[in-house]
């Protein structure tokens, strides 16, 4: 899932302070799971903003809504009727949702309400961690199901660097060494032979380095 974190409220105040009627739009998808942009967060943000603008004696109407998914046109359409009631929208969806909203409602200023961080998992309530960098050419089959690209700080492909110490990465004692994990898992699976051969330089064309990416699948297209 895509993990995000709420933007500091000061930043949002600054984004919208010159408008009079603003809609806060949440997303029921990923950002709800990571408790950054769902209905609950919309309510809290809207309420805090109302408190602020009321206290400042500034005329400001803040409304709340949440869409099933902002990365989907059908759901974005739901705003069609009311979008013109607002001067601006603060979208609490991930960066993709914010942009899709902006694409659909070209004349409305759309502001991001969260900082989109990574593709990851909920390790425990309140703790989210990165697991994938969407490199577009998954190599998990040979790395014991643990991704060296997202979990090694230097995205090494041939094993741990010289800074790995007691299972932790050289950058911080709070960060697991991805390669230590890979090694342990390969050992458990009896797959250490995967480690023997050098891995060739990776083709990053399928990653961000190839420019904005697109998947087109004729088998699913209408």
């Amino acid at each position, binding site marked *: 899932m895509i993990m995000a974190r709420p933007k*500091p*409220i*000061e930043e949002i*105040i600054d984004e919208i302070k010159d408008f009079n009627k603003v809609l806060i739009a949440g997303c029921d998808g990923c950002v709800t799971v990571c408790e950054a942009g769902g209905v*609950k967060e919309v*309510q*809290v943000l809207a*309420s*805090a903003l*109302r*408190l*602020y603008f*009321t*206290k*400042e*004696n500034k005329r400001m109407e803040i409304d709340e809504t949440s869409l099933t998914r902002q990365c989907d046109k059908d759901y974005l359409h739901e705003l069609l009727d009311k979008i013109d009631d607002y001067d601006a929208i603060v979208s609490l969806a991930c960066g993709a949702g914010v942009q899709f909203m902006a694409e659909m409602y070209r004349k409305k200023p759309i502001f991001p309400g969260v900082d989109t961080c990574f593709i990851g998992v909920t390790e425990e309530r309140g703790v989210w961690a990165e697991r994938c960098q969407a490199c577009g050419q998954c190599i998990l089959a040979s790395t014991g199901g643990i991704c060296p690209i997202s979990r090694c700080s230097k995205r090494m492909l041939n094993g741990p660097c010289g800074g790995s110490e007691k299972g932790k990465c050289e950058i911080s004692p709070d960060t697991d060494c991805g390669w230590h994990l890979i090694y342990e898992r390969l050992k458990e699976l009896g797959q250490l032979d995967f480690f023997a051969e050098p891995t060739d330089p990776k083709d990053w064309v399928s990653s961000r380095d190839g420019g904005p990416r697109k998947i087109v699948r004729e088998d699913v297209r209408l």
Partner: protein
Amino acid sequence: MRLRYPTNIKIIKVPCSGRVAIIHMLKALEEGADGVIVAGCLEGDCHYQSGNLRAKKRVIYVQEVLEKIGMEAERVAMYNLSAGDGPRFAEIAREMTEKVKELGPSPIKNAKKLASKKSKVEVAA
């Protein structure tokens, strides 16, 4: 036993302080409350294990939000007391009322009054 506590306090009963969400505290302030007390059981005594600890974290969160938007964080407070401790509750209520008095009325209440006056004038004009 009848205890005296300030009459300007409105009590909202919930089964556990863990039930109090961030939005409830914010809403109370939005409605013009001068302060909000979340009264939970003593730490370690929660019937639902950690309801009061979670409430405490939420209170801290609201306090941080208030600070960021330029309001006094002390308008929201968490207290822990045992369920039957009426005298302690009365004491807390008095304490909070004193604190809020020191801070003065909520800026929201004032702004709202001002806004409604303004709109009245507008209507009259």
